[in-house]
């Protein structure tokens, strides 16, 4: 049971990094990114590929963040030309393109077979504690730093401008400021957090295949952000917790409703998350912590 809880906590913390990044992009800046999982995949594969070459994991993690941010750069440039809904479609297509590249470029990524034997954190560190525990501790640290960093950024003049961009981009231009500069940076920061999450994931699971990077994950992160409250750092934290609670909690539904088969249960779990989201939006449209419209 302890191992199970630790595993849930680790996945939850990985999701939290993803939610923090998406929240900066959408909640604070209004950029609709439906391709978040693409940057997660870039980070996971970058760090995994460097890790199996025997490079120190610190380098792998740093490279995961950098490559994810660099991949986000062209998408950020696109966001200058595209209005919200078009950006949503482009980013969704982008993340699927990343997945297809991973499937087809087998010389690099081993295609659908995936990458196995990715070194775990404790193997690399040589410390005497278990991989899970070490991963958990480092994830807490990473999330803590991410929260502090995002707090400082969003409370700065930079943060003021991105929130203004979310409300009315043309008005920002009419004040002599170029929204593009800000949007590209926000895209890259959010993506680098997704890349970091990907690196943690790869080295925790130790085995990655393209099927782990489906758009469903992007939408889980959206659900977490919306349930918590978009545009609030606390919202990202609480929302991720709630999402994981529903995803994992619904596992135990079988104990209550034993006549549902395991296969059906997978669908029931999704249904539970959907229902929770609908109810929350009906009775608390700003999310649990209240979103940016209610500050």
């Amino acid at each position, binding site marked *: 049971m302890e191992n199970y809880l630790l595993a849930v906590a680790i996945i939850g913390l990985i999701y939290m990094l993803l939610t923090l990044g998406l929240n900066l992009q959408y909640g604070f800046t209004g950029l609709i990114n439906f391709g978040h999982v693409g940057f997660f995949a870039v980070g996971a594969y970058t760090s995994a590929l460097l890790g199996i070459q025997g490079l120190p994991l610190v380098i792998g993690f740093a490279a995961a963040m950098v490559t994810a941010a660099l991949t986000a750069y062209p998408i950020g440039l696109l966001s200058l030309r595209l209005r919200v809904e078009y950006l949503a479609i482009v980013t969704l297509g982008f993340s699927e393109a990343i997945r297809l590249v991973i499937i087809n470029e087998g010389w690099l990524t081993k295609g659908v077979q995936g990458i196995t034997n990715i070194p775990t954190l404790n193997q690399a560190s040589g410390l005497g504690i278990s991989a899970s525990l070490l991963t958990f501790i480092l994830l807490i640290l990473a999330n803590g730093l991410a929260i502090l*960093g995002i707090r*400082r*950024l969003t409370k*700065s*003049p*930079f943060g*003021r*401008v991105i*929130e*203004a961009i*979310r*409300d*009315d981009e*043309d*008005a*920002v*231009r*009419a*004040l*002599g*400021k*170029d929204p593009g500069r*800000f949007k590209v*940076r926000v895209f890259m920061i959010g993506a680098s957090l997704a890349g970091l999450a990907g690196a943690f994931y790869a080295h925790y699971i130790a085995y990655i295949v393209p099927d782990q990077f489906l758009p469903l994950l992007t939408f889980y992160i959206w659900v977490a952000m919306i349930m918590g409250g978009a545009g609030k750092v606390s919202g990202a934290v609480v929302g991720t917790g709630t999402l994981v609670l529903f995803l994992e909690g619904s596992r135990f539904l079988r104990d209550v409703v034993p006549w549902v088969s395991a296969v059906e249960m997978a669908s029931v779990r999704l249904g539970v998350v959907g229902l929770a989201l609908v109810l929350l939006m009906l009775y608390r449209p700003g999310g649990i912590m209240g979103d*940016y*419209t209610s*500050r």
Partner: protein
Amino acid sequence: MSLKIERVTKLFGGFLALDEVSIEVPAGALYGLIGPNGAGKSTLFTVVSGFQSANKGEVTFDGAALDRLSVPARVRRGLGRTFQVPREFRHLSVRENLTVAAPMQAGENIFNVFFRRGRIRDQEAAIAREVEDILTFLKLDEVAERPAGKLSGGQKKLLELGRALMAKPRMILLDEPFAGVNPVLVEKISRHIQELHARGMGFLVVEHNLQALSALAEFLYAMDRGRILAAGEPEEVLGDPKVREAYMGGIA
């Protein structure tokens, strides 16, 4: 610092929205631009401020051509604008709306946010004082902490003006500052414009409230169907038969 609009033409498909429009506003002058709905006044503003490009003609400000500059670059040159329908940052407070508009903020740079906090703090304090001045000047101090989206229409107009002022322009294109504003506030906004004008700021004001505008402006241009109909002293322009015809044409 004068604004020169020379033979600017703008086509929307086959529709000639601006037909060789030429307007000159000297530095520090307070000029008005009138015309019935659809005359092309707002189109002229979108072209001059750079939101759309002209098909022909050129716009110069302070002797420099603006035509190839982006919207923000034109504002940084000193040519500001407001919008006909206020475009406040509705989820930010009135104070934040004004603060965000201050130009050249060190804290807009991510490196500075994390490593040069002292510099940002000093600048923030200076900006806060400017914001305080504008809040007092426009009598918005009582609603300073309210989300801008919750202001009344008239207050939004004032905020729109205040925000444009924070960007420190030398000339402002004011798009219908009196639209949807009650007579008392019209008076108030007029006084603010006059005060700013007295301090040397230039204005080109588009307005349908001809009475308020002719009391305010030193010189009027009248437009109809994409062309300049008349230009001169307010009484002169308003008395011009062509201008009367343009306004009354539909009715008479």
